[in-house]
């Protein structure tokens, strides 16, 4: 990671956010970053409050519907401190996919006829076969991709349970790919279920074993997002204004030296509760997996 890098963050909103990697980048006090993510949750707000980010490329930014419009986004974007470059959700996906495919753009109908066209500089082209107007969605090649997966072997072959989000495309699109995994499995386990591998080891540059590496965001089947924590976070901002995020950074990012120390701030009971809730929601999947094992 270098100052000024374009960093793509895997997962989506509060699902499989690579929180351990996000935390380390914040601790390294990087500056001048551009962040891209299809739906950006409060990890983007942490970068804003830390003064680490100049531009956010996204389709949506906030914590989630019940927590309302983000006061942090309003504070930093309305003052012109951070540029929020908005694309449609499909356009973000196709930008990563075009890069993953090694082509300069992909034709699509997304964003046509909307004012989003003028924000990030999307151009249209004439379909050379029919003459129709189509959007030419430009490839996005991030410098660095941050990705959290369910399991990987020591060669970096990654498997993801549940929804795939855009991670496989992001990994192919980026120059440097950093991965954290809930579990490191023997190579033979990858070879027993190769159809489950979505990111091959050849595209991965570094891999770290980090259980609960998305917490308090979710990992499908393993732990549910901790909505109480989100409420505490937004509640503090409601009460004390944008400076509350600096307090959050001290408590959760700059303070705890290791990720294990960070998880201790939440406590084992909270982790166990969120794991139980995930199992309740994915029981058929879990039962199937057990039978299969």
């Amino acid at each position, binding site marked *: 990671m270098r100052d000024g890098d374009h960093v793509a963050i895997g997962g989506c909103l509060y699902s499989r956010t690579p929180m351990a990697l996000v935390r380390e980048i914040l601790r390294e006090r990087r500056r001048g970053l551009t962040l891209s993510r299809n739906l950006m949750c409060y990890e983007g707000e942490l970068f804003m409050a830390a003064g680490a980010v100049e531009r956010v490329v996204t389709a949506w930014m906030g914590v989630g519907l019940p927590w309302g419009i983000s006061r942090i986004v309003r504070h930093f974007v309305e003052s012109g401190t951070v540029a929020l470059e908005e694309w449609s959700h499909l356009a973000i996906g196709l930008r990563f996919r075009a890069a993953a495919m090694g082509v300069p753009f992909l034709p699509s109908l997304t964003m046509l006829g909307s004012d989003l066209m003028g924000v990030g500089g999307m151009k249209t082209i004439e379909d050379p076969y029919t003459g129709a107007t189509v959007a030419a969605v430009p490839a996005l090649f991030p410098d660095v991709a941050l990705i959290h997966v369910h399991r990987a072997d020591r060669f970096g072959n990654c498997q993801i349970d549940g929804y795939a989000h855009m991670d496989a495309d992001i990994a192919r699109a980026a120059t440097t790919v950093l991965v954290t995994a809930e579990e490191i499995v023997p190579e033979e386990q990858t070879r027993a279920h190769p159809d489950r591998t979505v990111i091959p080891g050849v595209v991965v540059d570094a891999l770290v074993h980090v259980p609960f590496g998305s917490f308090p965001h*979710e990992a499908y089947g393993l732990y549910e997002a901790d909505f109480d924590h989100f409420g505490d976070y937004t509640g503090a901002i409601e009460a004390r204004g944008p400076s509350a995020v600096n307090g959050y950074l001290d408590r959760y990012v700059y303070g705890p030296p290791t990720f294990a120390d960070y998880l201790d701030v939440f406590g084992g009971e909270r982790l166990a509760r969120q794991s139980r809730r995930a199992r309740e929601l994915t029981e058929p999947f879990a039962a199937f997996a057990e039978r299969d094992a």
Partner: protein
Amino acid sequence: MTTTAAALACTAAELLAVMGARALHDDSTVFAGVGTPLLASVLAQQRHAPRLTIVIEGGIIGPRIKPGRLPISTNEMRAAHRATMLPGITDTFLFAQRGFLDVGFIGGAQIDQFGNINTSTIGGDYWRPKIRLPGTGGANDIASLCREVIILTTHEKRRFVPRVDFVTSPGWRDGDGTRRGAGLLFGGVSRVITTLGILGFDPATKRMRLEATHPGVTRETVREHTGFPLLEIDDVAVTEPPTADELAMLRALDPERRFLR
């Protein structure tokens, strides 16, 4: 507008969910966001459309939402509960672009007389707006790529503006074929279901018109709460109020009333 709902012994969200559910047909597909759109879709599934396929932008097809565990975002386990396919987000939108999605449900901070929606910025210029809203999320694609778009919204004058500050999600754009002219091959807003009634669009001009009011709402009230001149069809209908059955089903889905406020 809440007084309308109160007269019907339900909340604004319940009224919108019931009216939204009635607009959905069995053996069809609906692209639904969380909140009222998803409640409307699940209610339709339970009430009259058991083979309705719900599609959620987090990369989820065919979920069976667990009562009492309604999803808060489109990308979480609650949204994926007992889904039939998890194709990834980009591919989910590509199903819509290919034409597989019959109906899309969206809302918005501002809506104009051509059904354009703004969820991006209000006032100022784009890079330094007076109010920065969360952004499109999936709304632009749902509005552009579903065969029919239905808007669900509370009916307020500040929301129903002559011209949105920013077209995040195109409706009929500027009317007169401008949506097709921009390259959108199909779709368009068919209805705007509000807390006061149901609005449609004049087939020729694509300007919004009043087609039905909810029980107890006058046409004048609708006009007063709309920030632009509203056309009217000759015989403005009155909707059937939500039934006890519909409300009971909804309340069983959201017993904590997280979304039914």
